[in-house]
């Protein structure tokens, strides 16, 4: 808690369709990820009464052409918050303001980390993801500000623009906790919590 008694809680987790209840079969292929997300969301929900702002990529042109309107990240965020019985309205933005108190960022690393990965193997994935992972683990907000969004798109990373926006906030991270970091299907997932001093 900051000296002013107000802090900002940030959660970063991946917009994985398999997290949606409508995509869940009889067994859960992302159970470890889901458990980490639940833990982070619980922590976020418990962090006061301020609105939760969700920072997520808008659907790209290809998705829009298929009729997708609501961003995947928003749907994943809504599902996880619903499960945590957080019924308040959420605010979707692509430009967070300094006054945010509860911020949920939907992002993941490369989807090209193995031959079976959605985007096959691209060796550039590892350095790209390492940089993000280090920044998340160390609470290095500024370290996210200048991520290469174009390379990220090429590597099937998601939410890179959102991470850049998070970086641009230059948050003063008091505690960073990387709850989950793995790539079970060739896509790098992180679940991170940041407790930040208010500016």
């Amino acid at each position: 808690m900051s000296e002013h008694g107000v802090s900002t809680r940030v959660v970063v987790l991946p917009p994985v369709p398999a997290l949606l209840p409508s995509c869940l079969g009889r067994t859960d292929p992302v159970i470890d990820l889901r458990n980490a997300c639940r833990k982070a969301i619980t922590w976020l929900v418990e962090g006061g009464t301020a609105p939760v702002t969700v920072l997520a990529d808008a659907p790209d042109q290809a998705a829009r052409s298929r009729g997708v309107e609501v961003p995947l990240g928003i749907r994943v965020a809504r599902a996880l918050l619903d499960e945590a019985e957080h019924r308040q309205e959420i605010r979707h933005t692509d430009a967070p303001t300094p006054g945010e108190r509860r911020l949920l960022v939907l992002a993941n690393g490369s989807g090209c980390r193995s031959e079976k990965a959605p985007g096959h193997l691209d060796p550039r994935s590892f350095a790209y993801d390492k940089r993000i992972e280090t920044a998340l683990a160390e609470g290095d907000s500024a370290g996210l500000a200048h991520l290469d969004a174009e390379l990220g798109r090429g590597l099937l990373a998601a939410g890179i623009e959102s991470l850049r926006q998070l970086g641009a906030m230059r948050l003063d991270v008091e505690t960073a906790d990387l709850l989950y970091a793995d790539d079970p299907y060739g896509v790098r997932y992180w679940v991170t919590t940041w407790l930040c001093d208010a500016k």
Partner: protein
Amino acid sequence: MTLKLGQRSFADDATLVMAIVNRTPDSFYDKGATWAEDRAFDRVAEVVAQGAEIVDIGGVKAAPGTDVDIAEEQRRVVGFVARVRAAHPKVVISVDTWRAEVAHAVCCEGADLLNDSWGGFDPALVKVAATHDVSLVCTHTGGLTPRTRPYRIEYADVVADAIRSTVGQAERAVSIGVDPRSILIDPAHDFGKNTWHSLEITRRLGEMTATGWPVLVSLSHKDFVGEALNLPVGERLAGTLAATAVCALAGARVYRAHEVVETRQVVDMVLSIAGRRPPERTIRGLA
């Protein structure tokens, strides 16, 4: 409707595989493969391991043949039921018999379900089910005597007759004291039916499931499959599974079968296609 079979209850969307276990030297498909009691016992262990919820033990082949009297039928199945009960306390034990005397004896040894496959030929059998509080399959045979073949049998409407007969038997069973949660109805493909009848029963099975009574189907390698495809016994698995798929889509609850694994896979796949069963695990395109 929740299905209560022996000590077990099954949710109203559960489908069950009933594995055929013959204690006969002359059944049409396996031709005595499990005639030796130890072989039959091994077969039970195998089908239980494969996931069959029910084993259906029969001591008399359905078709005409060597006479099997009550004493001989009891010799074949009663002690065997006791042995299966001791080794497999959870599996639902069904016995395929039309005789009340045999039914009583197997219930005393732990049978859970009486598969009255000759459609109430012995009216006393229902009383045995009520007395022992066991489950009952009510079967349509068109009024045939046990172990006889259909000969020029005709129906104005075979499906209507099957519904009238099986539902009538079910209601009578309830009136005599059988738990309504423990009753299945079976249109009995090939029994009292030519191939056209059995195909029509399959095509219109939804009319039977619409009665609300849980429907059992017994399709495995039967002659209607053989005649539809012009294939001998031993080459009817694909046809059997196609019929199984149609019945699954129509909402059948219990599938009496020789091949447990294949039957289960077909039923599960059809129910997933129908949106009535979530897929086992989905990550393709969703990671």
